[in-house]
């Protein structure tokens, strides 16, 4: 297809391949290779005592999938791994459905409200919490749910509880924590999809005589189906791969597959078996993605956040379109539940006259929004409160205000080392991610490739792989290279894992960039590189910098990959906090968390300002 006549005179014939070489080196050689190695090593032979021998055995899979009859009924009950796999799927589904039910009204309210400043505040709150490391957020819920924690203290104080009790570890404590961390993804996906509905359609519906509930049922809900589908799918996949929440909020009965994988790797050093279970988890994700692509129009790429061309494509986590297939299989039972709920509500409200009805609905929804926003914001606020408590141990309510834990944080050598490590790793990973994502975006925008779509998929693929698996794959890879347990290893893993963010943001910038500017520059005598320096880069700067900041903030807050690759030799703040949680709740943890949250919020606000409200 490409002939020498294509393109512009003076363009190097091979420029397109040079441009693509760099990102593909990282995304294929350095990312797919470890994944391939993971597959291979799942057939290796474990040597008790922490090593393994290349070979070919199916023992690892046999152990994982063993359902030998006679050992119990139903067969799945006999095999703890399969049982826990099923539990992982169940908890992920519950999380996705609860997030949808809880998140839809919020998203709807946010999308339809008409006070831009309040919307900004609410969105920034939701978004800021999104990036704070799961470790800190799990810690916040431990503080709330522990025996003697806030919930139980309040319960006793108001007389609902006879004596203090713990709400964690356990199934429902875990679900609360999971919903808490994944709800923002759901809200943002739904928000974008509802926002994209032309406001005139609501008016048209009302003008045609439909009341608010009918309008919702007949207009809003059908038009946001794709948002519902991608939001639910996204949360489900994220929940499947979650490690920190199940580990810190679940009891031993709630050890999900990622927790078991980590235990095999870091506890038992049984790499082949850990690899086999990782492949099992990937298989679940792939089967789910296949079902989704098969029965809906939501594409894997759209989950990765790749911009879809359809007007209803969503940011930041994307959304494809769905078609009638969606109705046919009716697979989002949640949507049905939502309709029922609204319908029932509508019946009650229907008896009140129209004007008061609408006012009532808005008041109710405001209260609801306030409640959910409290759910989103309170845990981090509680951490702040804990960090300034003067006491040695957490008490509630705190007995005063003191900076002593901040002083301890900033003067403690091991905290400071972790802090410096975190910042250094995040900065280097951000630089790597930006060069990978940026060069891929640039190459794909500039040159047509026969396999362009595939290369684009490579660009979003890393974040679709559960982080625990990325961590295990890189660990095995870096062990082979002798790099495991180094900061370099973490930087490379984070740089690749988070490359999709700069890739998406820069692709989007290039998409919106009018190529005529570059042509004008060349016409005026600027060479290719001079054009990029004086025109292209300045016009893309906001996207490039936000992409880098995103990668920075994500790397800064990442736990499981860093932990697996640290081999106990490298400390970052999330690792340090996680480890400290084992030894009680010294409020220094809270102080460290607050410093970290502060940093995260500052960077998020910077991104928002830079891009002129990218969340709008």
């Amino acid at each position, binding site marked *: 297809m490409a002939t020498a006549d294509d393109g512009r*005179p003076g363009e190097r014939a091979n420029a397109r391949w040079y441009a693509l070489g760099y990102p593909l080196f990282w995304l294929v050689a350095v990312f797919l290779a470890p994944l391939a190695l993971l597959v291979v090593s799942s057939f290796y032979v474990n040597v008790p005592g922490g090593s393994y021998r290349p070979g070919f055995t199916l023992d690892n899979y046999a152990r994982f999938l063993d359902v030998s009859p006679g050992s119990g009924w139903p067969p799945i009950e006999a095999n703890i791994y399969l049982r826990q796999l099923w539990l992982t799927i169940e908890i992920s589904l519950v999380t996705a459905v609860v997030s949808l039910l809880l998140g839809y009204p919020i998203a709807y309210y946010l999308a339809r409200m008409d006070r831009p400043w309040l919307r900004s505040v609410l969105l920034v709150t939701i978004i800021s919490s999104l990036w704070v490391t799961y470790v800190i957020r799990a810690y916040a819920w431990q503080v709330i749910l522990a025996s003697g924690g806030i919930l139980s203290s309040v319960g006793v104080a108001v007389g609902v509880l006879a004596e203090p009790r713990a709400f964690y570890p356990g199934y429902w404590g875990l679900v609360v924590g999971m919903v808490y961390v994944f709800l923002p993804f759901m809200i943002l996906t739904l928000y974008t999809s509802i926002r994209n509905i032309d406001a005139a359609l609501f008016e048209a519906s009302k003008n045609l005589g439909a009341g608010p509930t009918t309008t919702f049922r007949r207009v809003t809900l059908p038009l946001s189906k794709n948002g519902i589908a991608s939001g639910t799918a996204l949360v489900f996949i994220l929940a499947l791969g979650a490690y920190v929440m199940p580990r810190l909020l679940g009891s031993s009965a709630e050890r999900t597959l990622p927790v078991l994988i980590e235990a095999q790797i870091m506890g038992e050093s049984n790499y082949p078996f850990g690899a086999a279970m990782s492949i099992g988890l990937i298989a679940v994700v792939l089967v789910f993605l296949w079902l989704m692509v098969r029965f809906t129009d939501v594409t894997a790429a759209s989950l990765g956040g790749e911009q879809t061309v359809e007007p209803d494509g969503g940011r930041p986590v994307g959304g494809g379109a769905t078609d009638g297939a969606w109705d046919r299989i009716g697979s989002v039972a949640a949507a049905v539940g939502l309709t029922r709920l609204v319908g029932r509500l509508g019946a009650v409200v229907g008896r009140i006259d129209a004007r008061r009805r609408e006012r009532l609905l808005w008041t109710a929804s405001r209260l609801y929004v306030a409640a959910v926003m409290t759910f989103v914001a309170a845990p981090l606020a509680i951490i702040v409160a804990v960090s300034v408590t003067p006491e040695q141990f957490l008490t509630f309510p705190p007995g005063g205000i003191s900076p002593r834990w901040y002083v301890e944080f900033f003067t403690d050598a091991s905290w400071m080392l972790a802090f410096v490590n975190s910042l250094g790793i995040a900065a280097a990973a951000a630089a790597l991610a930006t060069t990978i994502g940026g060069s891929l975006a640039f190459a794909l925008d500039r040159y047509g490739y026969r396999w362009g779509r595939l290369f684009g998929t490579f660009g979003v693929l890393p974040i679709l792989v559960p982080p625990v698996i990325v961590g295990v794959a890189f660990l095995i890879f870096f062990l082979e290279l002798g790099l495991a347990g180094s900061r370099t290893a973490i930087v490379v893993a984070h740089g690749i894992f988070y490359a999709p963010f700069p890739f998406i943001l820069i692709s989007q910038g290039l998409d919106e960039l009018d190529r005529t500017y570059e042509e*004008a*520059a*060349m016409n*005026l*005598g600027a060479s290719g590189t001079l054009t990029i320096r004086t025109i292209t880069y300045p016009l893309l700067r906001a996207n490039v910098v936000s992409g880098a900041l995103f990668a920075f903030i994500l790397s800064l807050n990442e736990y499981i990959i860093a932990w697996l690759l640290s081999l106990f030799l490298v400390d970052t703040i999330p690792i340090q906090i996680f480890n400290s949680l084992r030894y009680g709740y010294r409020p220094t943890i809270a102080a460290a968390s607050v410093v970290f949250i502060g940093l995260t919020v500052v960077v998020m606000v910077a991104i928002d300002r830079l891009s002129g409200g990218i969340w709008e």
Partner: protein
Amino acid sequence: MSDIALSGITKRYPGGVLAVDDVDLEIDRGEFVTLVGPSGCGKTTTLRTIAGFERPTAGTVSIGGVDVTDAPPYERSTGMVFQDFALFPHMTVYENVAYGMEVRGDHTDEEIDTRVAETLELVELPGVADRTPDQLSGGQQQRIALARAIAPRPEALLLDEPLASLDKKLREQMQLELRRIQEEVGITTVFVTHNQEEALTLSDRLAVMNEGRIEQVGPPETVYDEPDTRFVADFLGTANLFDGTVAAVEDGYATVGCGDLEIRARHRGEATVGESASVVVRPERFAIDDGRTGGNVFEGTVRFKRHLGSSVEYRVESGNDRELVVVRRSGTDARSVGDRLSLSVDAEDCLIVGA
């Protein structure tokens, strides 16, 4: 010697579209040539080939006598004005206009200062140097785009529908401005438009393009009065076209049979009996009710009447679903809808073109 020469330019896009098909065009120094044709006929592609944004599939481009077919855009000396101006949004007007001299690096700062000032003077916008493009009106942006293109003193000025985004009044004013500045600077200019009126008013010569080919090149009056092809006649201005077969040929004239009627018309080249041909009659060439009975006479009824300001246009139904367009100066030969009339036209004013 010609300043810009296109020879055998052909451009086939990767998808297979043949956008430009064997175009030859020579443009003299200081000349203003317009490429005109319907949307999609290959004008932009031709212009972009001159600027160096597209590599032709075949043929050569030379500017100032030098073959630049393989030279990148930044090594050719052309100044381009883009349809949406493409003023750099992150630079001031001054920086935009200075950009071409700065990136070439062959001017001192003082020279650049002076040149920018002169050029802004030339486009009659001396006061806007410190503004950014979004602080300018459409017409002002247009002038700055022109200033930016000519400031480095390129050998050729290329304009791609630069006036299309302006409203009618501003567009007409800018046409005059553009011509004034072009003559003042004396720069060889290629102007692209799909607007035939604009092409007729502005150009020294115009090249009418259709489906990737140039159908005719010439001064506006020649192309209008003596179209070479049916397409050119139809595209420029309004034309009554009669399609038929040559019935008889005699010394400079031929008779063309068009179903129920025969028209005697002038022909320039070879007309062969039995060949299909079209006859072009411009609407202002008809005489109304001048009493003639022989020759090219059409009886008809006025079906529609339209005032065009200085003239009036009639649509006259004349047998067999044939509708003739007739234009008269306002105040002469006034007729009303429903009036019957007789239209006649001299064979001299009827022109045979290839079908």
